């Protein structure tokens, strides 16, 4: 058989596998999320319009107050997530590089216990032993959402086909080059999934920051409950839920866009 024939055969085989198997971009959730968020916010707004607002409610159900709490909430969330990205990804790289059983075992044990720790307990404990306020909440958020990113970085690096990294070494890449050009790009999807989880965690934990006087939309929920003004409570709960959904939605888009092609 001639080579030409061989090649023709191979070319004709390939197109069957041509459709790169990536998850579809426009999924039900992708399309529905922003629509649902807008509808829910609209419904909330219209509902509040129909209510008689007394002076207590007026103190919270106004644009200035809501924007202030939302800003606090987002600040907490994004500063914590940025810190987590900066701290947990390098930590994950170092942890996945170590050959020390002791260190790995320690990290895994801490990760397991950390996962079992209730966020509310941790944040209140920190407030009791240290102080109340924004900084404490920030530290609690960072500590709490550190683990998913650390773990995903380790998983992302360890799930890379060893033959790929061996090829890279065999071609003469330095360990730094192997990490930067091969391992990290290939781990990006898993690391991003960790960051997305951590962002959503942060929105949630930032809600309980109100218990230690660190602001955020949790204030509206707690005040609404304390003052028996359910519209305030509901507004806070709906707003914070919409923020969580929106951030998750944006993160999922970022995940799809930043995933390396071909993977």
């Amino acid at each position, binding site marked *: 058989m001639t080579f030409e024939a061989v090649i023709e055969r191979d*070319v004709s085989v390939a197109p069957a596998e041509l459709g790169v198997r990536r998850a579809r971009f426009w999924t039900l959730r992708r399309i529905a999320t922003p629509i649902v968020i807008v509808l829910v916010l609209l419904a909330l707004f219209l509902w509040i319009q129909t209510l008689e607002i007394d002076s207590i409610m007026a103190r919270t159900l106004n644009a200035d107050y809501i924007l202030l709490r939302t800003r606090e909430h987002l600040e907490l969330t994004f500063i914590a997530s940025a810190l987590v990205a900066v701290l947990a990804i390098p930590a994950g790289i170092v942890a996945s590089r170590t050959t020390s059983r002791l260190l790995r075992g320690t990290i895994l044990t801490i990760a397991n216990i950390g996962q079992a720790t209730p966020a509310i307990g941790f944040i209140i404990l920190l407030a009791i032993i240290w102080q109340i306020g924004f900084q404490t909440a920030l530290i609690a958020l960072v500590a709490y959402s550190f683990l998913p990113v650390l773990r995903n970085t380790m998983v992302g690096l360890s799930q890379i086909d060893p033959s790929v990294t061996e090829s890279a070494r065999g071609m003469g890449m330095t360990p730094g080059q192997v990490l930067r050009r091969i391992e990290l790009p290939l781990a990006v999807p898993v690391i991003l999934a960790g960051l997305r989880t951590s962002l959503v965690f942060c929105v949630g934990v930032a809600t309980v920051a109100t218990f230690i006087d660190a602001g955020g939309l949790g204030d509206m929920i707690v005040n609404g409950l304390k003052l028996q003004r359910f519209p305030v409570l509901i507004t806070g709960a709906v707003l914070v839920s919409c923020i969580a959904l929106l951030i998750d939605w944006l993160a999922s888009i970022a995940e799809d866009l930043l995933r390396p092609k071909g993977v």
Partner: protein
Amino acid sequence: MTDSTADTGASRVLGGRPTEATIRTTTTITTVKNTSGAHIELKNVNKVYGEQTVPAVENFSMDVEPGELIMFVGPSGCGKTTTMKMINRIIEPTSGSITVDGRDVLSLNPNELRRHIGYVIQQIGLFPHMTIAENISVVPKLLGWSKEKTRNRVDELLSVVQLDPKTFAGRYPKQLSGGQQQRVGVARALAADPPVMLMDEPFGATDPITREKLQVEFLRLQESIGKTIIFVTHDFDEAVRLGDRIAVLSDRSKIEQFDTPANILRAPANDYVASFIGHGAALKRLALIPLYDALLGRATDARGTASLSETDSLRDALDLLVLTGLPAIGVTDASGKVVASVTVDQISAELGDDAGAGAPGVLS
């Protein structure tokens, strides 16, 4: 050490200096012109893994001429891979010395060394997040080639491994079939024209038909590029088909026999080698002997219309004799003129020459 000085240093060590080399084949001495290969020497190389007490490779010594295609063949776990990977220091030897063109690889920066040694593994290890072109460009980029030169090289290599650059350069590895990926693996290893190639069961994961195609293509390729190649396989037939010389290895990478395929088939050094060859040694040998190397009959003895070319093997001749049932068949030269004839007796005689020399039991 900066990249540029290291590079020139390393190219001096392993650079493609065309040399002439002699390669022993069955009965002739073939001179390969323009080999770009390097001379490799392993001396008393040992490898003991971690805490293990038994070495994986024990006192391994071997001399490989420039341009030779050496096959390491042996059962799984005998240490083939370990031995091969010590040459580019993916595995560090415990003791012994390894030189490439006279330079001790242990004294070189391993990353610089590896940029001048092509490396192909069974799992291929293409980078899934890079296109085919990007995969092939990795080493040229590491070596600081210009974009232009790299791009031309990619196109050239894709053509060499029989993949159309226009179709394939922009694809990702998972858009290719297994055989195509394997070709890209070979092209990637050839990218910077390294004088040495290390290949660990490169065709092992492909189906038999694809494997045979790849083997034929690979032989052709090697004919034109003349690299020094260490090729690991556990398939003895593959070793016979491809190798200039075969090293039959047993546990701890012990060399049971190191010789040309024909010599090993004719005279296995011991029972171990004989059992590795398995049945049909005579047929395997016949496949290695071209008709022009055999003692043939007169052209006038030829019967029938069927004929063979003098470049066909004795095995082809036997095949045709059995198929047609004729007593003798004509052999043509390049111009198509019948110049000789061949009979079963003459074929037997070619084998018979040495039948007594080896282990008769196997050859019977």
